[in-house]
């Protein structure tokens, strides 16, 4: 009997060590790199965050439920139990930063899908929010990323190969006319997945990277735009005549009357220069999503 107990104790100790080791490489992103301007994810990004990941409406009776985390990842068991054999739609994607700037959608037809027919939408074995077609989420408040201090975005998505103008996320200075682009990642047939801030822009995802999950990092200051794809510099541009001081960010997806084109699993925005942290932030994200 004593031997059995000792074995169990040893296994427990090994388990704790193993768990500690894993957790060291998967420390929540915002505990390592705090003060994000906004942060949306289906994993927990901050230890002290006590809220839920998403609010979900189920198709069977339109009831809603907040879905939180278990072991720092989305509580998929509760999500499946709630949705049953029907569909689940995201009505709120909670902001895990200290800002509390949630992304919401109160119109049922525009709410993005996370469960279809009792099956959670997954990319690379991780839950995913499908922002396709007329689906989009609206930030409670426009995020104003200051280009003077260098705006940064890190996101995990799977851009879809579609025809015509499509958007993964978008922002405009003038929301009533969708004029003066802010931080926008969109697609058209001649400019595949073009990043734009005001009139600066470049293609970011082309060829085999379309229709595949990727981690992208993006930085902008008043002169330079840089894009990193799966850890490597992918494209950049500069215009010394650019004089925008703030970068607006409003929608996950295309927004009203526009078409969305991307599955999204995580998006974190910073108003702080992350040049020296970029590699470590990308490693933290990739350690979880195993993209490359």
């Amino acid at each position, binding site marked *: 009997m004593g031997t059995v107990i000792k074995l169990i104790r040893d296994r427990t100790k090994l388990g704790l060590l193993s768990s500690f080791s894993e957790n060291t490489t998967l420390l929540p992103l915002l505990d390592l790199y705090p003060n994000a301007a906004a942060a949306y994810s289906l994993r927990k990004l901050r230890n002290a965050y006590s809220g839920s990941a998403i*609010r979900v*409406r189920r198709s069977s009776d*339109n*009831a*809603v439920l907040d879905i939180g985390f278990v072991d720092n990842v989305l509580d998929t068991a509760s999500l499946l139990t709630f949705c049953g054999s029907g569909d689940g739609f995201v*009505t*709120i994607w909670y902001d895990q930063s200290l800002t509390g700037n949630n992304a*919401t959608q*109160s*119109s*049922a*037809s*525009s*709410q993005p899908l996370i469960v279809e027919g009792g099956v959670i939408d997954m990319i690379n074995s991780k839950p995913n929010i499908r922002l396709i*077609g*007329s689906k989009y989420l609206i930030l409670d408040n426009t995020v104003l990323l200051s280009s003077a201090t260098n705006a940064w975005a890190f996101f995990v998505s799977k851009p879809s190969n579609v025809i*015509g*103008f*499509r*958007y993964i996320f978008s922002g405009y200075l003038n929301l009533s006319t*969708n004029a003066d*682009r802010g931080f*926008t990642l*969109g*697609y*058209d047939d001649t*400019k595949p997945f*073009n990043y*734009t801030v005001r009139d600066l*822009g470049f293609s970011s995802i082309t060829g085999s990277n379309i229709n595949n999950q990727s981690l992208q990092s993006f930085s902008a200051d008043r002169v330079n735009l840089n894009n990193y794809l799966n850890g490597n510099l992918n494209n950049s541009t500069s215009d010394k005549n650019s004089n925008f001081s703030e970068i607006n960010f409003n929608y996950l997806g295309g927004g*009203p*009357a*526009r*078409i969305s084109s991307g599955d999204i699993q995580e998006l974190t925005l910073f108003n702080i220069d992350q040049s020296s942290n970029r590699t470590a932030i990308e490693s933290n994200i990739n350690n979880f999503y195993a993209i490359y």
Partner: protein
Amino acid sequence: MQYIKATKKECEDYNSTVTLGEKYDGISTTQWAEVIEIEGLFYIPFNEKYPSELTKVKELPVIEADV
């Protein structure tokens, strides 16, 4: 997804019909859909549970825009 193409009033009425029928929670989900205006024409997503004789289109017109 199909869209109804109609007058603004007809689109608003269709939204009211679906919204009332679906009994949303009224907090995080308040309606079926926003009426979409594109180049002076009005559209609303069609819900198969709520038939309509109004004109339907398979897709919204693409906005020549600004990616």
